[in-house]
């Protein structure tokens, strides 16, 4: 058995969540950032006039203005306010990211569950599983950006077709992810115990396997939103998705427009603003996802060691005799908060 196991005070899951989040500063920052972005996007959708002074195509008298109080990110050569455009793009880009990643998760996740769980050879389930995996493998042979680009060419230009194209490109990742997790969990001792107790396979899938698969999938999903965003934005940059300047600005398209019309050398904020916007958004999700990954992986929980030095044993104060009952006994097993792993038994 590992060296001493810490006993957690009887905390609810929410306070554990907060404590763990605080102990891992980077993921906490990511969480805050995502929260702020989400709230801002909500405001923009519900009541844009609250924080957006100008329309996306509205031309003002200030041409090529540097950032100022009037125009926090400056204006372009026709006086369009960059700040407004960047802000308007926020809910669009966020929404697209969630939509694509979410659809891919649903489609790919379901297929992955099926492929992983019902894969006994020789049955209908076996055949389905094999065919799903073959198709997935072939899809996965294409770099996602390339495939998505090719699909946009076929499906047409514009936001809708691009979203569809990326979704078609994206679901195989979730199939592979979920199937792997299902395979890992399917024959764990306690799942076999449930089988031995007579639980039907379907119920095992829904109750036991699904719960275990959910954790790593959520981590992946969080990180994936950023990746999807980058892909969509890159396609926008290449010039296939949103039209800029237009009523629905998008960061990648903005950057492409200003970089290609050559004005960015002289007026750098034209590219810095949308670039920073996408960078910050993707970074937020990456921090959160990367931190979540560490939090949920028991092997890396040792990262939560902080340094406080204790030089003396606790003062010998009288304590109630009930101290023995707080130790871990067989009757009240408590999940350990952190396990110090010296790698040996003591």
């Amino acid at each position, binding site marked *: *058995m590992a*060296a*001493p*196991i*810490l*006993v*957690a005070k009887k905390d609810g899951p929410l306070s554990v969540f907060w*404590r763990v989040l605080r*102990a891992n500063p980077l993921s906490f920052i990511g969480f805050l950032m995502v929260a702020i972005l989400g709230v801002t996007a909500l405001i923009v959708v519900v009541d844009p006039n609250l924080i957006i002074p100008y329309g996306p195509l509205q031309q003002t008298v200030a041409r090529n203005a540097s950032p100022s109080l009037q125009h926090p990110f400056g204006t372009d050569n026709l006086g369009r306010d960059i700040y407004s455009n960047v802000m308007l793009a926020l809910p669009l880009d966020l929404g697209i990211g969630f939509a694509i990643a979410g659809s891919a998760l649903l489609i790919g996740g379901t297929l992955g569950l099926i492929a992983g769980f019902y894969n006994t050879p020789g049955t209908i389930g076996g055949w389905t599983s094999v065919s799903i995996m073959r198709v997935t493998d072939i899809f996965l042979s294409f770099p996602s950006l390339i495939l998505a680009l090719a699909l946009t060419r076929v499906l047409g230009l514009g936001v809708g077709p691009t979203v569809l194209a990326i979704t078609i490109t994206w679901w195989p990742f979730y199939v592979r992810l979920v199937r792997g997790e299902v395979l890992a969990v399917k024959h764990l001792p306690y799942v076999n115990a449930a089988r031995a107790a007579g639980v039907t396979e379907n119920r095992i899938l829904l109750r036991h396997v699904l719960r275990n698969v959910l954790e790593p999938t959520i981590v992946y999903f969080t990180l994936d939103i950023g990746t999807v965003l980058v892909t969509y934005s890159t396609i926008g940059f290449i010039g296939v998705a949103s039209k800029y300047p237009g009523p629905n600005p998008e960061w990648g398209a903005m950057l492409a427009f200003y970089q290609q019309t050559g004005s960015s050398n002289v007026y750098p904020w034209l590219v810095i603003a949308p670039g920073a916007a996408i960078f910050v958004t993707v970074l937020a999700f990456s921090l959160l996802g990367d931190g979540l990954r560490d939090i949920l992986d028991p092997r890396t929980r*040792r990262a*939560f*060691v*902080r*340094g*406080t*030095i*204790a*030089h*003396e*044993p*606790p003062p*010998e*104060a*009288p*304590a109630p*005799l009930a*101290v*023995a009952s*707080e*130790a*871990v*006994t067989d009757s009240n097993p408590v999940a350990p*908060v*952190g396990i*110090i792993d*010296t*790698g*040996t*038994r*003591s």
Partner: protein
Amino acid sequence: MTEPVIDVQHLSITYTVGAGTFYAVSDVSLQIYPGQVVGIVGETGCGKSTLAQAIPRLLPEPPATIGGGEIIFRGTDLVKVPKRQLPMVRGTGIGMIFQEPLNSLNPAYRVFDQIAESIRIRHYRDMGWVKSFQGGDVPFDYSKPAAPITVGGSLTKSIIPDGAVEEAARDRLRTRSEFRDEVLEYLRLVRINDPETILNLYPHELSGGMRQRIMIAMALSEKPSLLIADEPTSALDVTIQAQVLTLMKELIEEVDAAILFISHDLGVIAETADEIGVMYAGRIVEYGPVAEVFRSPRHPYTKALLKAAPSKYKSEGPLDSIAGSVPNLSRPPPGCRFNPRCPLVKDICRGEHPPLAPIDKTANPDTPGIHRSACYFADEVPGLP
């Protein structure tokens, strides 16, 4: 009178984790003399592995902190040695064998390479080409009877003493065949027949008992002054355990190193150790010559432990066990840590922790190896059922 090879004085080790501080080892003292085998026995979680790994300062220092005390190895306090110089002490100074043979040999390298690495390190140090910890002019060679140990090992020996340049050049020309002979020699030392056959094998191609022997050979090939065995037989099958134990006993006869043997198995300790320390909740509660402690334990925990080890077949009824469970070491009970479970407990037990004192009140407490117990009521223990 010779100095002890290792002299641990009032060592305390704590782990600091986000949720609190954890007193893994408190106020442990012990000495081991050359040629002596000291066994530490205790339940899981009592701190014996922590103690074993703390001595060569193998514990990762950020979570683990040495809160107080000294570890005097051949005259030098290891607690004060800066981290950078610690590798010099290990290997030729202190050697260690671990519990899990599956994980203690590097799966990516062959048997020959792993043992040759140890031998190479020793040769480099012997020649002075690399800084080493061997004190004085007499390298500690356990094949000879123990020479008097010079106190104050030199960690400041210069890297290139005279004549070493040519030596080093010659050493680099040393072909694998020279190391090969030595490697085979050490493999034979651990009673592996036909060692040539396993030289090119990887660890995953060998059995557990074989791997354990190789680990012992690796440790011994550096001729350490102190050998720490951290539960070397606990992960082996009973029959293999017996083989490896026999091997260790024979080696102990031949080798003059000091040995610290950690185990949770009373039988194993009884067979191999000269003196035994019983640990409970981070403290040594009883210490003494092994025969005496087993025959006449003077601490309620030791007595209960011995009783709980089944020695006869029982046809019916529950096995003897100790009521209660091991305390939470982030909030240990005040006073004697065994007091919640002790049949002899009185109020004084919850005050100051009882000192580890000789049971013979008239004896000099500094006599090494004398039978001691950390219980105020050591005399009443023989009377317990």
